[in-house]
């Protein structure tokens, strides 16, 4: 019991260290640069305590839940030895977590507005909703495919940089022909797809797979899944923009 309390206190101290910089930055700019008092100090203190508590619990749950699940699944699929089901699992995980991602829903809605302002989409709510939904679907499929390629790469032991750099070359080439209003959104969509819950799970899955296959190195082969998940959305969103233009 007592060791548990000490463990928890140690985690809290860790969280304080993690959060100190951002609190310091905000306080410095408010008090010194903008020279304004901090409004609602009581509310803010409650908020800071919540953030602390939340981060501590999250880190605790990470080691108990998210990491072990990723590793267990990697082990189970490796033992089962079915490539098809492993890849199906990778796709479902990528697609499922991205389709419901709130950050993506927000970006897709904004993208529809940009497209309407550029005259690519009719200025009606229906047309914009269709555009936003198609865009979300595109990104979700692209993340599913990213994990499929990423997992397949781990099995084969291909070096990650050839694939990623090849992808970048494709991104640059597509930037030349993609319609202007989609480029900023495409570049940003790579960053919004990987959420706080997905990242630890996917990382544990990749590292777990690399650990179960004897000739793979967990550092060289296990990491890289997230990189694929942030690259393919750029390619797919630009392709979406090009095709949408051609169709319309």
């Amino acid at each position, binding site marked *: 019991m007592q060791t548990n309390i000490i463990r928890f206190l140690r985690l809290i101290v860790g969280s304080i260290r993690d959060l100190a910089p951002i609190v310091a*930055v905000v306080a410095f700019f408010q008090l010194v640069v903008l020279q304004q008092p901090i409004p609602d100090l009581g509310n803010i203190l409650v908020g800071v305590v919540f953030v602390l508590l*939340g981060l501590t619990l999250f880190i605790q*749950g990470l080691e108990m839940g998210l990491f072990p*699940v990723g590793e267990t699944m990697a082990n189970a699929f490796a033992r089962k030895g079915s490539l098809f089901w492993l890849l199906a699992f990778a796709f479902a995980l990528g697609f499922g977590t991205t389709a419901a991602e709130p950050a993506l829903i927000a970006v897709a809605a904004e993208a529809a507005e940009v497209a309407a302002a550029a005259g690519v989409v009719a200025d009606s709510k229906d047309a914009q909703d269709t555009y936003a939904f198609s865009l979300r679907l595109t990104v979700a499929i692209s993340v599913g495919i990213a994990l499929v390629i990423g997992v397949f790469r781990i099995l084969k032991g291909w070096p990650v940089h050839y694939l990623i750099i090849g992808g970048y070359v494709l991104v640059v080439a597509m930037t030349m022909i993609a319609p202007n209003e989609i480029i900023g959104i495409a570049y940003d969509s790579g960053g919004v797809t990987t959420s706080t819950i997905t990242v630890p799970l996917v990382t544990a899955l990749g590292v777990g797979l690399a650990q179960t296959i004897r000739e793979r190195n967990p550092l060289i082969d296990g990491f890289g899944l997230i990189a694929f998940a942030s690259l393919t959305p750029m390619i797919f969103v630009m392709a979406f923009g090009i095709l949408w233009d051609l169709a319309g």
Partner: protein
Amino acid sequence: MLDLLLHLFWTGLGTVRDVLPIVLVIFGFQYLIIRRPIANLRRIVIGFVYVVIGLTFFLVGLEQALFPLGELMAAQLTDPAFIHGAGAVVEGVRWQDYYWVYIFAAAIGFSATIAEPALIAVAIKANQVSGGAIGVWGLRISVAIGVAVGISLGVFRIVTGTPLHWYIMVGYIVVIIQTARSQRTIIPLAYDSGGVTTSTVTVPLVTALGLGLATAIPGRSPLLDGFGLIAFASLFPMISVMGYAQLAAWWQRRAKVHGSEE
């Protein structure tokens, strides 16, 4: 008080909805395809509950404390009255006038990245897997430096109105050169850290800054120029993480050379 409880409740529901697809996929595959009981199921379920509750409190706390202040600050710092002094009439945009905005962008980029839970997770994993060779803080600080530089530069781009893809393409070329010269063990981790950095804490603050700037500067459109900061924030950590590894290797070589001379 009641507001806070309601806020907690709705955010909690939102987090459950985020976790739901993951749980469905995992348990679906577990029971239909793998058909084996999960080891330590009880512990894992408790872990997931911790994650959901933790993330809920984390998000509510951020929305309660940091986001309103951060967003207000972004708006105030980009306000023409702050930048040029009250009542001043300025023709055109001089990028030098925005120095506080660049400093703020760097500081908020750095500190938000240090607080990012997903990056903490990847750093812990990398530390475990490398047998301690990759330090948790070494990785987090180099990623944070990358985000700081990236967001600062992204803000500079919005102020000057230069095209996004020039910066990104030059960044890619730097990444390719560094990849050719880096140790193979750091490359996948460096590539991953680009995508990891941009989640819960960083995205809302950075988006507010980009939109605030694009609205305040004459001739910029929030819809067209407000985007792109996230892309900067995910490109530059790759450069800084590989740079850190190269620097560390260089130091080691230097120390060796000096050691053998003495």
